[in-house]
């Protein structure tokens, strides 16, 4: 929790540096000379955009504090759903928050975590934990909609009971520095983990999706698909680590990251890692970085589709594969609309 510690002590030396291997592409110490003062409490925030505004029960956190105490009950049977909005509304200030979601045995939850920048130049940090009991199912969609001159870091830790299911899709639009970490301790035992992500980066935005999945028990399944596009001078970072500990035999873990570079000055940094200490496992990772297919662009243009639209169509299709994997129909459609909105920024 070095960012949290740096904010609490207002000490920039506690920030992670690019000399730390895990932060080599997202170093903060080099960027922040003075840690901003603590954000003030606010009473109200502006409304949410489309995806956070599905009309679901909503918890609002502003500048690191819950706006009001709301009890969100998750039904023991059937499906619960709610939205958490993490709003940064204090320009030039810093805040850290911690929150926990506990999901009872056999309960099912669809959760939207929406990070929103409603001011500029903030430093936001969040530590979010999940505790899923046996047989619990969570589908989590994360929207990272920070201000372009903000620094925003979030770390999620996930603990899973036997037979649990944790599916996550992170949609990121970047910031001056944006980092979203997910750490999963995977007990095996019929547990199914899916960690997906997509990013659309323009201007000088930066986005880092980092995942660590540690398999500690037998027969666990993990699948990961992250896809992104970087235009202009943007930078996308993907770090995915899968650790299979001794005894975690029968693990099936697959990780893929594919990115499109839409400009010569954009950058993609990817580090997929498999650390395997067990026998009899099926693990694989794939990573590609490329440009849009010129032949496909010409084909679309030869049918009358102008170049800008042809590129947008192919880019949407490229990222669409991630969105298609979202199970909840309502959320999938809203996520698709969110991505389209970001892709308009490319034209």
């Amino acid at each position: 929790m070095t960012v949290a510690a740096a904010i609490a002590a207002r000490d920039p030396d506690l920030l992670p540096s690019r000399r730390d291997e895990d932060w080599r592409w997202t170093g903060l110490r080099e960027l922040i000379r003075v840690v901003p003062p603590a954000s003030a409490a606010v009473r109200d925030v502006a409304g949410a955009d489309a995806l956070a505004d599905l009309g679901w029960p909503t918890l609002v956190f502003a500048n690191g504090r819950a706006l009001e105490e709301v009890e969100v009950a998750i039904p023991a049977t059937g499906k619960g759903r709610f939205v958490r909005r993490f709003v940064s509304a204090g320009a030039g200030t810093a805040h850290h928050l911690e929150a926990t979601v506990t999901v009872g045995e056999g309960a099912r939850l669809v959760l939207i975590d929406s990070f929103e920048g409603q001011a500029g130049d903030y430093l936001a940090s969040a530590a979010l934990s999940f505790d899923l009991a046996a047989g619990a199912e969570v589908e989590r969609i994360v929207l990272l909609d920070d201000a372009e001159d903000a620094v925003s870091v979030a770390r999620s830790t996930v603990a899973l009971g036997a037979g649990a299911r944790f599916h996550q899709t992170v949609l990121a639009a970047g910031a001056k520095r944006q980092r979203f970490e997910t750490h999963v301790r995977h007990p095996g035992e019929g547990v199914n983990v899916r960690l997906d992500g997509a990013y659309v980066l323009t201007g000088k935005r930066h986005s880092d999706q980092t995942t660590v999945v540690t398999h500690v028990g037998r027969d666990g399944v993990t699948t990961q698909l992250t896809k992104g596009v970087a235009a202009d001078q943007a930078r996308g970072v993907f770090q995915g680590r899968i650790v299979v500990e001794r005894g975690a035999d029968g693990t099936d873990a697959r990780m893929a990251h594919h990115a499109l570079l839409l400009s010569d000055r954009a950058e993609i940094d990817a580090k997929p890692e498999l650390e395997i200490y067990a026998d009899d496992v099926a693990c694989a990772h794939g990573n590609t970085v490329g440009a849009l297919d010129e032949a496909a662009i010409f084909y679309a243009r030869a049918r009358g589709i102008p170049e800008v639209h042809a590129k947008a169509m192919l880019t949407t299709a490229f990222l669409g594969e991630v969105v298609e994997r979202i199970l909840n129909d309502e959320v999938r459609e809203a996520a698709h609309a969110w991505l389209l909105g970001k892709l308009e920024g490319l034209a």
Partner: protein
Amino acid sequence: MLDISNLHVSIGDKPIIDGLSLSVPAGEVHAVMGPNGAGKSTLSYTLAGRAGYEVTDGSATLDGEDLLALSPDERAARGVFLSFQYPLEIPGVPALTFIRTALNAQHKARGEPEVSAPEFLKRVREAAGKLRMDMDMLKRGLNVGFSGGEKKRMEILQMLMLEPRFLILDETDSGLDIDALRIVSEGVNALRSPDRGMLVITHYQRLLDYIRPDRVHVLAAGRIVASGGPELALELEREGYDKYAQGGREAA
């Protein structure tokens, strides 16, 4: 309609089309036949506006308008349609979405109203029926996992939907079995009309049994070396391209 005059095209530094002249009046179907390497595909890509095909001399106009000055999508909006020899696969874009996007983009460019979703679906069902295509195929990613013959049908389906004024068929018969060839040809023939022109580019005479040309031109070494009626195609089928290939070299 289409007038090509003294066209010279290079790819990189290599000249491929070398002084080609050809006119296709409205209402006519012209075939361009030639051996491999004669410049057939270069001609079709140049007319469609593909990058990398550099026109070093000459002109190509459609109804007097300079085609070569237009972008590929502008040419399409003017009514030029190239049926690709090797249609592309576009994962994640359903054929229905692709065709509707293209149709409405062309309408927009011409200042015409958009086609409504129900009207579009009605027309696409009709066209797919003519080509014996399953609507399920149109809901999947464009051409993804399709056989060569299915891809060619998809080209013709797009052609029927977009209703172009000038059609260029680049080796449309390649990869087709005899039943598919007949179905595809029926689709093309349905578009024959007094205000449309067609250029049918092919290596073999076979396709011309189904799409009967008004004129046949022989392309060798980047230029038209002979022109005649439909009988010329039959002669080529019997005697091959040898004498023209030689003639082309001598002329060069």
